[in-house]
């Protein structure tokens, strides 16, 4: 059943060729086998309850009742997405929220429930989605199923692992600068960051509000498209959500597609040879399919990292102000003053990376520095957005690596946050330009670690981008590979 597309599986559940209970049983079998080692989930609902929910779906199918588009599908959601559930906290990987149960559902959660999906748990992440390895979680370290000594990527590391180890069939993650695509690449799954505004952010605990976007991780572009179709849509609770019609998935003829490869991405020093060669193999496949691939210069590439981090940190420093121990979350009293309550709660509640980003973000917004940093970064962002728009007027997609390297060893980069920041150079472009971007598993590294290659499309043409990726996955098989541990 793990080979079926989500659409096929839901059809079979509806027509009772497969029961939702048997799907749930299979997923929980994987959870029982791998979760203890991989630690993808922060919290997970009891199997008994998951089976009851699946039984409800089967009963409805039996009674011929109308079932939703995700009927009986076990879905994981990242632990920065709010869900109102007595068994599922929303901790964001942070000690300061370790006792927090959200009293409302995120819009995406409402949409999943509406379509009869079964949300089975909350996946681990870097604290407040700040990081690229999921090592910044206050609670646990998630391992990569391809090599448990390696990181799964991040910040949606738990989400990517839940898919790679078949412990969920659809995962929702969030992507501020690559947090869906990079772990998807590290774990050999497909992940999409939609156009900014396609999916409501209501109920997503904000990191960089102008960059954050919820998206899907799954085993294929087809499944990502299927999931995205459910969670997208204008939301009156989110003023930044777009009132744009999400079109039907078009049929894509790769021979008519024009791909752009930024010259700067071919720089041999910037990425591992394996990464470049994996991308080159995809380009070769595209050319053989008759597609046009041309190089163009992206002279603003060296501006991406500073621009991204100034904006993201500044917004984060403000967004995280509310975690003050006053109304919810963990309060640590210092002496009896209010200032000490704030300082003690926040000093104890946040991890090192979060504090670093809050401090940097506070600095760039300080009186006298605004124009120099945040103001300038916003101007640069607008410029980048316009430049990318020009390129995408000429091309259907931009191709690039997702990460300069495949999954690294646990602890390998924790002492060098700057090198981790710099590794986001390929992924932040899509967030800054607000365009959709998908990470596809392409040729693995010499040591058989997954590598992802990225396609970026035009604003609000998410379904075209996904259809292009699906067309590629029809003629390639890298996305079908699964970690060895599943075959034992």
């Amino acid at each position: 059943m793990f080979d079926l597309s989500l659409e096929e599986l839901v059809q079979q559940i509806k027509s009772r060729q497969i029961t939702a209970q048997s799907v749930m049983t299979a997923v929980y079998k994987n959870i029982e086998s791998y979760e203890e080692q991989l630690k993808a989930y922060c919290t997970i609902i009891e199997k008994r309850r998951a089976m009851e929910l699946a039984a409800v779906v089967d009963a409805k199918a039996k009674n011929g009742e109308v079932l939703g588009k995700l009927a009986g599908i076990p879905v994981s959601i990242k632990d920065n997405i709010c869900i109102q559930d007595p068994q599922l906290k929303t901790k964001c990987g942070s000690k300061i929220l370790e006792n927090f149960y959200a009293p409302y559902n995120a819009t995406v959660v409402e949409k999943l429930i509406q379509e009869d999906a079964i949300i089975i748990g909350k996946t681990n992440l870097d604290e407040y989605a700040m990081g690229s390895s999921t090592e910044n979680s206050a609670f646990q370290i998630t391992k990569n199923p391809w090599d448990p000594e390696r990181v799964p990527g991040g910040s949606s590391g738990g989400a990517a692992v839940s898919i790679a180890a078949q412990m969920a069939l659809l995962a929702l993650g969030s992507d501020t600068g690559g947090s869906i695509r990079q772990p998807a690449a590290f774990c050999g799954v497909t992940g999409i960051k939609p156009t900014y505004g396609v999916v409501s952010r209501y109920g997503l605990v904000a990191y960089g509000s102008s960059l954050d976007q919820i998206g899907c991780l799954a085993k294929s572009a087809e499944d990502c498209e299927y999931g995205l179709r459910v969670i997208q849509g204008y939301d009156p609770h989110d003023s930044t959500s777009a009132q744009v019609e999400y079109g039907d998935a078009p049929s894509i003829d790769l021979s008519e597609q024009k791909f752009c490869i930024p010259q700067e991405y071919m720089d041999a020093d910037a990425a591992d040879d394996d990464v470049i060669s994996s991308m080159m193999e995809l380009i070769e496949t595209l050319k053989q399919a008759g597609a046009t691939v041309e190089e163009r210069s992206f002279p603003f590439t060296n501006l991406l990292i500073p621009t991204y981090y100034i904006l993201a940190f500044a917004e984060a420093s403000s967004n995280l102000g509310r975690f003050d121990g006053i109304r919810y979350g963990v309060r640590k009293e210092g002496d009896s003053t209010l200032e000490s309550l704030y300082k003690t709660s926040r000093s104890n509640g946040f991890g090192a990376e979060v504090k670093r980003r809050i401090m940097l973000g506070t600095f760039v917004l300080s009186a006298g520095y605004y124009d120099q940093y945040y103001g300038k970064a916003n101007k640069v962002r607008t410029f980048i957005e316009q430049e990318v728009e020009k390129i995408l007027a000429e091309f259907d997609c931009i191709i690039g690596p997702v990460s300069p390297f495949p999954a690294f060893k646990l602890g390998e980069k924790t002492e060098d946050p700057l090198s981790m920041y710099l590794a986001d150079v390929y992924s932040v472009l899509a967030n800054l330009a607000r365009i959709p971007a998908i990470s596809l598993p392409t040729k693995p590294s010499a040591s058989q670690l997954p590598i992802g290659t990225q396609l970026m499309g035009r604003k609000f043409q998410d379904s075209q981008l996904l259809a292009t990726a699906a067309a590629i996955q029809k003629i390639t098989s890298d996305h079908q590979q699964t970690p060895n541990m599943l075959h034992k």
Partner: protein
Amino acid sequence: MEFEPVIGLEIHAQMATQSKIFCNCSTEFGKPPNANTCPVCLGLPGVLPVLNKQVLEFAVRLGLATNCTIRLDSQFARKNYFYPDLPKAYQISQFDRPICENGWLNVDVNGQTKKIGITRIHMEEDAGKLIHGDGDDDCSYVDLNRAGVPLLEIVSEPDIRTPEEAKAYMEKIHSIVCYLGVSDGDMEKGNLRCDANVSLRLAGQEEFGTRTETKNLNSFRFIQQAIVYEIARQKEELLDGHEIVQETRLWDSDKKITYSMRSKEEAHDYRYFPDPDLPVAHITQGWVDSIAETLPELPDAKRQRFINQYGLRLEDASVLVAEQSIADYYEDVAAHQVNPKTVYNWVIMEMGRVMNETRKRIGELGISTNHLAELIGLIEDNSISGKIAKAVFEEMLKNNQSPHVIVEAKGLKQISDEGALGQQIDEILESNPAQVEQYRAGKTKVIGFFVGQIMKATKGQAHPQIVNQLLKQKLDL
């Protein structure tokens, strides 16, 4: 040394919307703590603001009424600071792109008209409030009912020079926000309040002195008193050779002094930046124009019309138009073809006195405009005297009856019948021959004695002029 005060006001007006600025919670006052809250105004993780369009419309209304330029692409910004009544640790406000800019108003002080510039008007959310436990309870409690209630902040240019001008400006703003319906203007509830920036400079000097900001003045009187105090205090400091400390001060209305709250060194760096959760508030000139068409007649225009239409003096017309309900009431009464100046006297003197005593609004006194017009009509056709009219008015307040009914029931109608009065006068002259002799001997002042006697005999209902006339006729024979 001659000092010139330089004063600017920042006024906060709570908007009269049904729901909060960024969520659907009610703005109703007086609910149990935290009854009017939801995940959005509680600032829970993951929530997002959605602008209440009514807020935008109210801001535009006020901007148009105060001669501002309306910005078609205004933007919300976050003002970041920590306080337990501020659940997101930032207030959503406006910074460098406010909705209204470069306006002005005229105020009248001592017969002089003065133009006061308005730098800007912007939209923002209010914070909640803290309730501190008393006695053994050393806890502080947070009530977020007010968090997210929409405010308009109206910032004046430093054009004000005297406490009287400051008060007049505040009164004008109060009057306008009430006319427009954008705020109920209830200063006692703090729905309209102001911060006063005051500095002194040497007469003739160009640059401003160091200013202080006195916060949360919530009555016209306090504004004036606080500024008078602050001018005197700063003058004394300067004459003593001290420098003025730039600081935030508070007004103590019991002691009638301002005192320091925090100095500039402790001032916050609010780290303003555009709120990424709220797109630029694009509006069209067409929408602004359609709002302009719905603006009511504003106080200044109404006052001019009252002067022209009713022949009122400028000062009297100013008093009438300050509150729209009073102006409307006045016009309704005046429409009954009675003397507009008499109507002014009754509305402002008599009803004004009762409004002050009972702290009621004009519509709550129970005297309809028809009844007041009737009462004035009775005076004008000599049916009752002014004195009797006041007694009838007191009755009207008590039982809401028509003055005709009261006059009939109590037999208060003025006696103007010369025959009946003549008879009475003859009787009194007969029974007081000594006084008649005195009068005829030249002590004409005793006529007052006769008038008093007749009034006594008629229970005040005799028409005084006719009595005088008849007395003279009979005595001068």
